[in-house]
């Protein structure tokens, strides 16, 4: 049961992302803020940290291709960035402590890096013309805050679920 729960949560998060994206952009006092939901990659980072780096990279590749084909129509963007982020997360965690607060911070920082790379790419191919300062204020900061909130609410649940799977696997082996 737990075995199928991990990929099905990933699928659910993948399908929920665009629904949450419909709530954005929000307007506060004449300023427009974009909130980009990054639930799936946060979850994959957690899998990479607490479960298995290799497994996370595989999931990252699969969902990256789906994301590229369905939403972006530029194949090879998310399908490289998602596995890369998972790989980075899995590598970082080997040298530091696995406390929930630390991993949450790392996840949010990695999402910020992802967002920044995407901005640079879209700037390069002329899809967007907004200057760096505007990007930081109207996109990066609100996105980081929203995703950090999401992770604070559901991070422990991810960890609980993944730990249950790890325990089950250990029992199967023994």
């Amino acid at each position, binding site marked *: 049961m737990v075995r199928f729960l991990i990929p099905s949560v990933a699928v659910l998060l993948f399908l929920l992302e*665009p629904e949450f*994206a419909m709530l954005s952009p929000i307007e506060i006092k004449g300023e427009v803020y974009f909130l980009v939901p990054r639930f799936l990659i946060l979850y994959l980072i957690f899998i990479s940290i607490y479960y298995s780096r290799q497994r996370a990279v595989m999931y990252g590749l699969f969902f990256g291709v789906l994301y590229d084909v369905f939403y972006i129509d530029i194949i090879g963007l998310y399908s490289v960035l998602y596995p890369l982020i998972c790989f980075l997360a899995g590598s970082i965690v080997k040298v530091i402590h696995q406390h929930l607060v630390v991993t949450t911070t790392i996840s949010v920082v990695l999402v910020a890096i992802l967002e920044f790379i995407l901005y640079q790419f879209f700037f390069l191919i002329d899809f967007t013309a907004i200057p760096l300062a505007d990007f930081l204020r109207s996109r990066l900061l609100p996105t980081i805050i929203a995703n950090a909130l999401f992770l604070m609410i559901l991070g422990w649940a991810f960890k609980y679920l993944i730990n249950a799977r790890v325990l089950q696997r250990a029992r199967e082996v023994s």
Partner: protein
Amino acid sequence: MPHFFFNKKVILLLVGMVFLVALISFSLRDRTNATLPEQIIKDTVGVAQSIVAKPANYINGIFNSIDSLLNTYEENKRLKARLEDFAVVQAEATDLKSENNKLRELLDKTESLKAFNPIHATVIARNPDQWEEKIILDKGSSHGVQKNMAVMTAKGLVGKITLVTPFTSEVELLNTNNPNYRVSAMVLGEKEAYGLIEGFDEERNDLIMKRIDSSLKVKEGELVVSSGLGGIFPKGVPIGEITEVSTDDYGLTKMAFVKPSADFSILEHVVIAKRTSTVIDGSDGNATNEDLSNPQEASKEEAE
């Protein structure tokens, strides 16, 4: 031995990079059709997405109705004030409509650029990373949707179809930065002024209407609607209201900033307009001037 492995990895990495760049540049080209594997993925994800979208839209609807319930008193007061004018306007409109029909019959002119067959569609997803302004609908080519058709809400035009698969279609919204995105429009002033909606000003949140003849008078507050002269869109779909008029970069024609009448941020149900009169690929599409309504016949004529 370790040296050999190092080399192998580097070569693998380089090959991977070349492959990646090739893939990205292939998909960045201005493609008109999705490839078969892409179509299969799009349709499968689209079906799953529309299942999730239903409860999500429902919950969204509940929040919206609570929101409108809170505003009921204010709204009621405003609407009552407008109701009296409305009766007069409606009587006038029915009168004009019947007169218009009679005159059309007299002239034997039954086709109109205004007429269209609506295809109702639900928004199942919005591009989550929001770099391109794009939404995905649950109707595709099997429902009669074609590329470059106009997409609108009750308030006005929101965009046009850019990609169609059998069961989904993609809409690029009007507030895009794509320089190849044009909509033929006209200003409803004392004398109609024609121009093209090209581009979006992000700071002002306004659309930019270019190439208006400089001899024509265009004022702030005048309405802008689609002209139907681009070949694909029906005539008379509201686009917005002029907020500022200036001359364009070369000083030869006028340009105007247009506040869009439709709200692009919250879209749930939209209407795809299938024009009933002949469809030609003009400035609303790729400007090839091809007859889109019966392509076989058109190519036959060209061959002759």
